[in-house]
């Protein structure tokens, strides 16, 4: 794989080889093989059909959305798409797998040979994708709800899932992190998965090995599981790399095994050794016919693909004259980019819109832990605030005050449905809050005169050439006008009187 500049990790003598298996839960309306919905957070065991329960005689039906969404992901990551592929059964016993097998794909994944570009602070790199295949999810085993029993929730059983398998091209935990966030970004742009790792709609297992720098052959790998956040993936991989290097340096040998990450203890523990590994006894799923895709359909999916992050970023730079960093921030999440573009459209001012989103909106989202979907103000409301500033009715500090007031009111009204904060006229609100700036010479002049009268010493020094004191006078005018004086007018009046 090419890269502008290879990363160097902490250790000078060893390098890590990392491959990731990412499971993404698709937002198909119904489950992968059963006509029943599956929503996160519903009451346990309420989203079921006899099939989800594994009742005798039930048969799977392929959800066409599952195929469509998977192909979208394949096309967005440069994969080849198999014109004919089959489902396979992966056989293993576990209580949250009622059929005793998972419907998956084995020898013929629907998408293969793709790649994803990741961006790190100092370099870019392409990570190969071995394959993307479709499968059904298992149910959930709950071991901490009852002191004596494990409980099983089968709502998730049979939900649509894709597994995205990378080539062993990743070399550092930071690259793994970048790869994961990139996958999240793509699935969100494609609108096929919400990308939420904490809720389990994105899950990641990592295969990690180390080898002396310069050695071609891979070392013995371990598989890491149970990393339920992006940061945990990074931490667990770093921990495992350090563990393997230390082990080898102590003359030990890495054992092939599956390890569980414990996010509280920040360590891993062994789940099963190579000898205990399952033999899944894959064989072609006899209940489902092969998936055969025709060229015309593939073409229609291709042309309907949404604009992907890279393309959108380039367009933002071009169309809105944004800097590369700002464009990257704004296109990081599709929903934020959508919000920004609707604000540009409503306000007619790309520069003011990007400033508004980058400084005000993102700060509020960070402070309150909101997603852009949870942000309570519409783009047309924000456009009105921008318009007030553009028309000289509020200055920038008043604009921020007004913005925060609207956010607070909207957030409170969301809590209190009887409140009528929404639908308030924003200009009226600005007046009510005394935020409208005075843009009339005759009203500003008394403030200017007052400041000149109160500061004879500074006036004298200014006249001696200390023109930097203009800032001081401006500050004083804003202070006595309680921030309402139009700064441009105030400054020109000051100049007139002092120069």
């Amino acid at each position: 794989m090419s890269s502008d500049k290879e990363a160097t990790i902490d250790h000078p003598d060893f390098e890590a080889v990392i491959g990731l298996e990412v499971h993404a839960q698709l937002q198909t309306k119904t489950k992968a093989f059963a006509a029943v919905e599956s929503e996160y957070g519903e009451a346990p065991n309420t989203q079921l059909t006899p099939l989800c329960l594994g009742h005798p005689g039930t048969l799977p039906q392929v959800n066409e959305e599952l195929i469509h969404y998977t192909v979208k992901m394949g096309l967005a990551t440069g994969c080849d798409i198999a014109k004919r592929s089959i489902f396979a059964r992966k056989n293993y016993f576990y209580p949250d797998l009622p059929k005793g097998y998972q419907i998956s794909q084995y020898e013929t994944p629907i998408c293969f040979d793709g790649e994803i570009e990741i961006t790190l602070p100092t370099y870019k790199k392409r990570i190969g994708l071995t394959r993307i295949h479709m499968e059904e999810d298992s149910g959930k085993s709950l071991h901490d709800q009852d002191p004596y029993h494990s409980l099983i929730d089968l709502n998730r059983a049979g939900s649509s899932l894709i597994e995205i398998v990378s080539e062993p091209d990743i070399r550092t935990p930071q690259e793994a992190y970048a790869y994961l966030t990139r996958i999240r970004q793509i699935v969100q742009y494609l609108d096929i998965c919400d990308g939420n790792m904490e809720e389990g709609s994105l899950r990641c297992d990592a295969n990690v090995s180390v080898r002396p720098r310069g050695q071609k052959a891979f070392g013995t790998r371990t598989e890491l599981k149970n990393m339920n956040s992006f940061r945990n993936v990074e931490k667990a991989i770093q921990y495992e790399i350090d563990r393997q290097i230390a082990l080898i340096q102590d003359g030990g040998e890495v054992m092939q095994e599956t390890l569980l990450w414990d996010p509280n203890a920040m360590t891993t523990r062994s789940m099963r050794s190579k000898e205990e590994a399952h033999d899944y006894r894959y064989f072609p799923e006899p209940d489902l016919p092969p998936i055969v895709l025709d060229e015309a359909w593939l073409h229609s999916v291709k042309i309907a693909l949404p604009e992907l992050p890279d393309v959108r970023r380039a367009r933002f730079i071009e169309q809105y004259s944004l800097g590369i960093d700002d464009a990257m921030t704004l296109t990081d999440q599709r929903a934020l980019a959508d919000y920004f573009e609707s604000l540009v459209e409503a306000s007619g001012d790309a520069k003011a819109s990007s400033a508004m989103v980058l400084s005000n909106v993102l700060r509020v989202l960070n402070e309150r832990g909101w997603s852009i979907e949870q942000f309570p103000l519409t783009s047309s409301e924000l456009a009105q605030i921008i318009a007030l500033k553009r028309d000289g009715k509020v200055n920038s500090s008043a604009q921020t005050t007004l913005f925060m007031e609207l956010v607070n009111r909207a957030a409170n009204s969301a809590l209190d449905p009887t409140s009528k904060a929404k639908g308030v006229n924003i200009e009226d609100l600005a007046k009510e809050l005394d935020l409208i700036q005075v843009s009339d010479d005759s009203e500003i002049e008394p403030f200017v005169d007052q400041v000149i009268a109160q500061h004879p010493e500074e006036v004298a020094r200014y006249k001696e050439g200390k023109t930097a004191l203009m800032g001081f006078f401006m500050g004083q005018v804003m202070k006595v006008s309680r921030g309402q004086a139009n700064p441009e007018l105030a400054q020109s009046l000051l100049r007139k009187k002092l120069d």
Partner: protein
Amino acid sequence: MIPSFLSDRKALLEGTTTLLALVQRSLDAIDATNDEVNALIDVYREESLSEAKRIQAKVDKGEAGPLAGAIFSIKDLFAHKNHRLQSASKILDTFTSVYDATVVERILAADGLILGRANQDEFGMGSSNEYSVYGPCKHPEDYQRVPGGSSGGSAASIAAGYCNLSLGSDTGGSVRQPAAFCGIVGLKPSYGRISRYGLAAYASSLDTVGCFGATVEDVAACIEVIAGQDVHDMTTLSTEVPSYLQELQDRDSTTKSLRFGINPSWFSEGLDPEIKHQIEWILDGLKEQGHEVKEIAMPAQSASLSTYYILATAEASSNLARYDGIHAGYRSAQSEGAKLEDVYTLSRSEGFGPEVKRRILLGTYVLSKGYYDAYYGKAQKVRRLIQREYEEAFQQVDAMILPTTPTTAFKAGEKVDDPLSMYLNDIYTLAANLSGITAMSVPIGRHSNGMPIGIQIQTPVSDELGCFQVGTLIENLSSKEKQ
């Protein structure tokens, strides 16, 4: 006298009998012999009487559905809402279905009446109906003998006069073989012709829903209702289902000359000489009527048995994994407090019978890492060879004619401890499942031991009509002999 659906229906529609009388006739027969025959393991008495009244009311108003007058038993592996489904296995102890199989739904919608659940070999695995948690089903004419299997209870329930139609399943011969043993007609439709939705799976790529009746037309009348594409089963065929009865009547008058094929090796070693003789007599009769009979060598068929027992057991090992002691069905009494793996082991060891365990073990083995290519992979290839042989044969002939079984109904206990000799009983039926074609057994007289003999007719995929047509020809020939 074996009750015929179409005769009963005729009498019902003409008003010379009532559905209540037909049900009562069934219940009387059941009361007389079912304790001994053990063909039905559950009889829905109250439900049948109230259903009979409901359907009779429709008959009286002239609104009767196409299966009014049919009294069904269904094999114990069909989902029938709010009724038990046990596949004759301890492992499905206490299990009640929460939904209707597509075939059950279609039967009920057509005013068919389901009288009870029929005995079978556990999960459809067996050829004598001796592997059942309910105890063996016996041949209605000779309690020392077996009715065949696995759908033994279904066949026996018709032969014993308990009902006039029955649903079974045929994965390797489980409809045709008991039909031959019991002297009735049994059809294995083309794979995908009838929805498997609601049929507890044994080997998904081989399983078919089959039907038993006294005559070819009885069976055709049933298939006409239950066949056809189903959204719940993605392996069902989209080809249209003809109106079989109408077509049979229309064609009767204009029967053209047909070409029949026989594979010489089917008639060599291992075949009872009397069965051979009887089939040759039928073939001679067909020739006399102006039909052509030609020999077609089908060498790949000799691998049917080994191919079948690899593919069927592989699929079975996966299909039966769901019976794990955790979800629906039997859980070992020693499970409380046991480790998860022990819950599985105990429940499955106690819940499955010997033949099912044998096939799960065999199937697990052939799918194991390192063995897959040698067994499952190779068997898939041989299966395609067998399919191709049939495709080529049907380029030359309209139907293949062969025995259904190498012997007539054998004695109970004779083969139960010798799996291979039991498996060999299906030697003539397995290839039809492997290739997905249509096949039917039709009775053609009796052996000197008193037991019925069946002949097997095989026609191409989706050509059930051709099978029925040949079946009626042979039925006519056979009844001439009796006169």
